[in-house]
C-alpha cells in the first residue's frame, strides 16, 4: 500500500501532535541558546549606548525568529519524509483537504500579534535614543543633555570633520571624547554618501545641502571603523577611515595639537555652517 500506516488511524491528530511537540521542544532548546550564545556576538558591539541598544535589538530579533525557523524546519523535515509518495508509476491522490478555519484563524492571529509586537518593539527601541541612525535636520528621538557637536562632511572620496564648539576646527581624522553625548551633523559637498561608524552603531546618509543629525553616546576609549555605505562614485570602495574614542584629557591634548597644525590654514576655512554649497558644481550635459 502506498498509504503510510499511521495515516489510517486518525492520521491528522497523530501527525499534528508530533509536529507540535517536536516544534515546542526544539524551540525551547534553541531559543535560549540563540539568545544567550549568538546574541552577545551580534553587531555592532556595546561600545556606545546606541550600539548596545542595537545589539539588544538584534538579539531580540534573532531570538524572535528562532521559533519560526524551528516550526518550518520541523514541519518540512516531517512532511517531506512522512508524506512521500510510494515509488510506483501509479498516481495516488492525497486526501482532498481544502480548508480548515481553525488553522487559518490561528495562523492569522499569531502572525498578527507577532507583527504588532515587532513593530511596537522596533518603534520603542528607535525612539528611546535614536539608535544611532540619521534622523534628518529635525530629529524626533533626541538625546537630551549637554551634547558635543561634531560635523561630518563627506565628499568624493573622503570624510572630514568639524568641531563647531572648538572654533570650527576641521580635521581629517575623527576623534571623539569618551563618556560623552555626541551629536553628529552629517552633510555632503557633492554626491550622496553615508557615514557608517560600524562599532559605534552609527549610520547616517550625507546629502548635499542637508543636515542629517545622528546621536551617539560614547562609553570607553576604543578605535572604530568608518566606511561610506552609499555608492558615491569611482572610489566609493576606498572611502574608509579609522576613528578613535579617547579619554577627555587626551581629547583636549589632541584638540590643542590639531589647532596648532591647522593654525596656518584656519583663516581660509569657510565659516561653520550646517550645510555647504561648493561652487562650481560639476554637472554633466
Amino acid at each position, binding site marked *: 500500500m502506498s498509504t503510510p500506516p499511521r495515516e489510517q488511524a486518525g492520521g491528522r491528530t497523530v501527525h499534528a501532535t508530533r509536529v507540535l511537540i517536536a516544534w515546542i521542544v526544539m524551540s525551547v532548546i534553541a531559543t535560549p541558546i540563540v539568545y544567550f550564545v549568538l546574541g552577545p556576538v551580534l553587531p555592532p558591539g556595546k561600545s556606545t549606548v546606541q550600539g548596545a541598544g542595537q545589539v539588544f535589538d538584534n538579539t531580540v530579533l534573532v531570538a524572535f525568529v528562532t521559533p519560526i525557523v524551528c516550526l518550518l524546519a520541523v514541519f518540512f523535515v516531517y512532511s517531506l519524509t512522512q508524506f512521500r509518495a510510494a515509488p510506483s508509476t501509479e498516481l495516488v491522490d492525497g486526501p482532498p483537504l481544502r*480548508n480548515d478555519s481553525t488553522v487559518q484563524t490561528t495562523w492569522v492571529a499569531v502572525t*498578527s500579534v507577532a507583527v504588532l509586537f515587532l513593530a511596537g518593539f*522596533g518603534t520603542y527601541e528607535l525612539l528611546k535614543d535614536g539608535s544611532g*541612525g540619521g534622523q534628518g535636520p529635525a530629529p524626533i528621538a533626541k538625546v537630551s543633555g549637554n551634547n558635543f557637536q561634531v560635523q561630518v562632511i563627506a565628499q568624493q572620496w573622503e570624510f572630514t570633520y568639524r568641531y563647531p564648539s572648538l572654533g570650527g576646527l576641521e580635521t581629517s581624522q575623527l576623534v571623539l571624547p569618551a563618556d560623552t553625548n555626541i551629536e553628529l551633523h552629517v552633510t555632503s559637498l557633492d554626491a550622496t554618501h*553615508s557615514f557608517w561608524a560600524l562599532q559605534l552603531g552609527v549610520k547616517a546618509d550625507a546629502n*548635499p*545641502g542637508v543636515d542629517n543629525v545622528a546621536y551617539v553616546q560614547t562609553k570607553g576609549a576604543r578605535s572604530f571603523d568608518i566606511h561610506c555605505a552609499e555608492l558615491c562614485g569611482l572610489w566609493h570602495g576606498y572611502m574608509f577611515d579609522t576613528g578613535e574614542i579617547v579619554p577627555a584629557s587626551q581629547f583636549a591634548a589632541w584638540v590643542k595639537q590639531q589647532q596648532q597644525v591647522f593654525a596656518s590654514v584656519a583663516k581660509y576655512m569657510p565659516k561653520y555652517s550646517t550645510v555647504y554649497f561648493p561652487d562650481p558644481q560639476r554637472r554633466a*550635459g
Partner: protein
Amino acid sequence: MSSMAVEVRPPLWRRLVGFNLLTGIVLGIVGWYAGWYLAHAIHAASLDYFADIDYNELSIVLAYIFGVIGFLIGLGFLNYPLARLRGYPPSLREKETGGIGRYFGLCTDHKVVGIQYLIGIGLFIFIGGLNAMLIRTELLRPDHQVWPAGTYLTLVGIHGTMMMGMMTSGILGPFGNYLIPLLIGARRMAFPRIEALTFWMLMAAGVILETTIFFGGFPTGWTGYAPLNIQANAGMDCYILFFALVGISMCLLGLNMIVTIVTMRAPGLTWTRLPIFVWGVISTSALMVLSAPVLIATLLMALLDRTAQTNFFVNAQGGSSFLYENLFWFFGHPEVYILALPGFGIVLELLPVFARKPLWGYRLAVAGMLGVGLLSFFVWQHHLFVSGINGDVRPFYIFSTELISIPTGFTFLCGMMTLWRGRIRYTVPMLFALSWFFNFLIGGLTGVFLSDAPSDVTTHGSFFSMAHFHYTIMGGLVFAFFGGIYYWVPKMTGFQLNERLGKIHFWTMFIFFNLTFFPLFIAGFLGQPRRVVTYPHNLQFLNDWVSVSAFLLGASMLLFIYNFVKSLLFDRVPAPANPWGSKSIEWQLPSPVPVHNFDRIPVFSGDPYGYGEGPAPAAAPAGAPAGRD
C-alpha cells in the same frame, strides 16, 4: 500541410528582406545615426562629432531614442497602424504560421512570444550572471585590482540593472504570455501586437544597457541615485534609457495581462476557479501598471536634469535628491514584489500537482498575493531610514513593512498545508518549488532586520541587505523560474528535459546558492558595505569562500544550459501530453500546443485542483480538443 508550405517557400534572400529582426537591426542603426546627427544639429556649436561624447548628452539620448524607433519600425510595428489608416480591415493576427522565422520578428501568437521571451530574457540574464562572476573575481582579494574601480562599478551596475530589469518580466514574459490564454481558455492575448511590442522593447533595452561600456559605463548601481546620476558620464544615459524602456514594456505587459484575464476568461471560469498562478499574474500586473509610470517619470526627470539642465534633483538649485529617492523607491519597492509574486504563483501552482492534493486555502492564498501587492505601495521609505529625510514617519514604515509578513505568511501556510498528508513526488520542478520555501524563509526573516529601524542602522547598505534581496529574488524568483521551466518547457516545446541532469542542476544550484549568499549576511554584519571594490583584510576568507561558491553556482547554470540544449536540440525525446498527471487545462492539450490552442472554447466546471475528489478531473473543460494528438 507541411509539404505545401515547402512549395510556396520563397528563396532565402527573399525571406531575409522584409519586416524582421535583420531589418530591425539595420533600421535601428540608421535611426541611431539619424538621432546622433540631429542632436548635433541642435547643438550646432559643437560639431566635433567624436570628441565631445562626454559633454553632449543629447546626442546619446536622441541617438538611442531614434534607434529604438527605427528598430521597431524595422520589425514591422508601424505596418498595421498604417494599413488601418489606409482603410484595411482590422486583423488580430500576424505571422502566426511558418517556420523558425516567426521567432525573429513581430509575431502575435502568444506561444511564440512566450518562447521568444524565454530565450531572449535568458540570454540577458546569462550576461547578468557573467557580470556577477566578474564581480566575484574582483572580490577574491581585498586590495588587488583585477578591474579598474570604474569598470568594477560598471559591472556592479550592469549586473544589478540587467537582473532587476529583465527579471521583472522573467516569469510574466515567458510563462505569463505562454500560459495565461491557455489557463483561461482563450485563443490569444487581448492585445497581441502590444504583447510582441513588450518583448522587442525589452530586447532593445538590453542591448542599450550593454552598450554603456562604450560610453564609460555608469557608477550608480541599479538604484541610480541623484545627484550622482547627474554627475556621471555618458554611460549613465544608457542606464536611464534601459530602465525607461523596461518601464514602458512592463507597464504594457501588465496592462495586457489584466485586460486579458478580466475580459477573456472562458465560460464557467469564475474568479474562484482561476488557477492560482493566474492570481499571481494579476497581482504582479497590477503592481507593474501602477508603479512603472512612476519609474518612467523619474527617469525622464533625471534625463532632463542631465540634458536640459533642469534641477529636479539638485539640492542647491531648489530640487531635492530625496525626491529621486522617494520616487525611485515608490517604484522600487513594488518592483521587488513584482519579482516575488510570480514566484508565489508558480510555487503554489506546482505544489498541488506533486503533492496530489487540492490547493489548501485558495481564498487565503489569493488574499495573500493581493495583500502583498497592496501593502507594497506603503513601505518604500524603509529604504530611507537613515537617509536624512524627515524621520518622523519611520515608526509608520516599520509597521507597514512588518505588516507585509502577514500576507506573505498566508502563502507559506497555504503551501505547507497543501503538502500536509499529501503524496509528495520529488520531481525536478517540485524540488525547485520546495527549495523556494527554504530560501524565501531566510530572505523573509532577514528582512525583519532591515524593516526594523534600529537594526537597519547596521544592516542598511551593507552586504547583509545585499544577501537578503538575493535570497528573496534569486532564492525566490529564480528558483521558481527554474521550477516553471522544468515544469512547462515540455508543454511549450513538446520535448522532455533530462530528469537526471535536472536533479544534478537543482542540487548544485541549491547548495552553492546557499553557500554563496549565506556568508554574505555575516560579511555585512562585520562591516562590508555594498558595491565596494576593496574590503578589510579580515573579511578575505569570507569573500574567497563566497567567490568560489559563486563560481560553482555559475557552473551549475552551465549545467542547466547543457541540459536545455542537449534535451531540446539533440535528444529530442517527445514529451507525453501530461507527464505530471496535472488536472490543469494546459496539460489536457497536446504538446506543443497547436496554433489556435483550442478547437472549441472550453467550458470550466471547477478549479484545476480536484486531486482526490473523484475520478473525473474537476476542471475538465467540456470542449477540450480530445481529438488531436
